[in-house]
């Protein structure tokens, strides 16, 4: 099963490799990872998407907590939360299909962020499914390039994490 985990870590050099080294050394998966500073500049948040059975997830959680640089680990599984990713998709465009592409972009509330004579660059934010869906619809026009961020997540409850 897939899990989205939020890890608060001290913001110092080498922390990323402590975390990624833990995952690779113990044979855990990382499907995506995103890192940025929190409101407190001494602390960073890592959002990690991983998968495994209950036993593996229990170990991931405990092993992360064991690292000296880790302040808090939070698994969003089973809790109401919002997940977002951002993707930029460069799609081939010509006189005939420009309008059609624009209507797809519209439907998904995406945006065109760059235009060239032969392409559009689309920016889309959403959960995993939404990005997969627009990718499918744009594919027939010819996707030249796609760049995606890792997933980030936030609990719906007002609690401070």
């Amino acid at each position, binding site marked *: 099963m897939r899990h989205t985990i939020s890890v608060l*870590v*001290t913001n110092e050099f*080498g922390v990323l*490799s*402590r975390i990624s*080294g*833990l995952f690779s*050394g113990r044979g855990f998966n990382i499907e995506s990872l995103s890192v940025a500073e929190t409101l407190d500049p001494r602390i960073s948040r890592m959002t990690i998407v991983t998968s495994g059975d209950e*036993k593996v997830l*229990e*170990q991931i959680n*405990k*092993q992360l*907590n*064991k690292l*000296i*640089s*880790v*302040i808090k680990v939070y698994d969003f599984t089973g809790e109401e939360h919002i997940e977002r990713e951002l993707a930029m998709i460069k799609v081939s465009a010509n006189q005939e299909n420009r309008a059609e592409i624009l209507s797809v972009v519209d439907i998904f509330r995406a945006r065109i962020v760059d235009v060239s004579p032969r392409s559009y660059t689309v920016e889309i934010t959403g959960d995993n499914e939404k990005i997969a869906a627009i990718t499918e619809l744009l594919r027939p026009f010819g996707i030249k390039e796609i760049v995606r961020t890792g997933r980030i997540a936030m609990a719906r409850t007002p609690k401070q994490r």
Partner: protein
Amino acid sequence: MKKNGALIFLECLKKEGVDTIFGFPGGVVLPIYDELYDFDLNHILVRHEQGAVHMADGYSRATGRPGVVLVTSGPGATNTVTGIATAYMDSIPVVVFTGQVPTALIGNDAFQEADIVGITRPCTKHNYLVKDIKDLPRIIKEAFYIATTGRPGPVLVDLPKDVLTAEAEYKYPEKVHIDSYQPNYTGHPGQIKKAVDFILKSKRPVIYAGGGVVLSNAAPELKALAEKLKLPATTTLMGLGGFPGTHPLFMGMLGMHGTYAANMAVMNTDCLIAIGARFDDRVTGKIDEFAPYAGIVHIDIDPTSISKNVKVDIPIVGDVKSVLKDLLKLIPAQKVREFKKTLEPWHSQVRQWEETHRLSYKQEPKGKIKPQYVIERLYAATKGDAIITTEVGQNQMWAAQFFKYDKPRTFISSGGLGTMGFGFPAAIGAQVAMPKKTVIGIAGDGSFQMNIQELATAVQYKLPVKIAILNNMVLGMVRQWQEFFYDKRYSHTCISVAPDFVKLAEAYGAVGLRAKTPEEVDGVIKEALAVKDRPVIMDFRIDQFEPVLPMVPAGQPLNKMLLV
């Protein structure tokens, strides 16, 4: 007053109560060695950096205090890696200080540069690169704090040369506080109560104690628990000495080379009380069939140990000593008598297992020397009052089986990583810590040669370490596996081309003794024990074909032991 980083470093060590460091100098740590020239701190000059870490490790295992290492950058640092990994696997508090090239050169492939912080990240509890002299005292304080608290372990601190030569106002922090590191010592009272109730309901309980008992200095509490409820006890290799080896409730070690009684008891128990142990594969055998009838209570300070290999029914996260103290208090006095009575059939069953298959060997008076005989004679000659270190392999298992360890910190061995070459430098470290104590390194001819250069260190500091080489001219444990499981195809396990260990000892300025027949054994031991001012090598020429038994073949359940 301003001081340079090198002097601040040494003063911080003093503040931490460090009396001895094990080290080897080099380019970038020269500022420290220069300050050390007239600084009051005992420095043991090793002959290889791996030896330094094993010595610090042995020092720590013998005393409970952290061991300290100082080496230079690059190769000096990389040579410490095996020692650090050894300490990490056995949770030993060792603080390793490595020199580093000046901060401006880091990343430039400078002379003797190695990314030691990167290299040791997975085998240290934590590590640091000091980038600014302002942080130096705090980081040293944190390093010792992290190494010695919670589940102990090695910490590495990398010291760039410019940090050592920079100057700053020196003030050692009185307190240490790390937001993200707050080890928990007290066990959950509800869980402890549950464990007591569960134990008192059991009919066939067994204590399975590991190195955590030794690390947490909980041997008295463990003994009190076993005696109070009359619980049969076994220990892991790392737990030897954590429970008295001569105690009537002690069944011997369990696992791959454990006793028949201990393994059978674990396979038949309905209540396994795991204390400071981590269900290593050498202990459990085939994991799916381990302790099939048991409800498991597991006391450990490290939450990751719990339910990692084996599902635990009653986990208690906390320091073994503290949890056992609380547990003892919760045992209702009025139930003890009744409970002990219900255990009688279980005790007679255990006794029967003990009597059917004792650890045994046969020493023919005119035959070749049996290694077990050597260990038993060492035990007799010292009356058990010695610190024993081991190498890894057959020598280690015989030392575990045939010497009786009544006190904690008297058996020192690389259990987790299984590092050949550990035992001799560890013996030196233990001897440095306890100059008056008899320290005996039980070795194989293979392992001993892996850190043989430290003979010079032992001679230089007049350390009367005794090395008993069980010399069978083969890599015995590997050879044993080849005999049992690889059709006697003895691929590359014969090491009969070896130095004459007696002459070698003499060449180093140590004492060399040899026994070729059983009747020479006692004489050699007696002569060795009388030497007080230099190391002694005892070369026991043993029976090459003696295997370690019993043996649970890898991947088999514990009750499938090869006995003869």
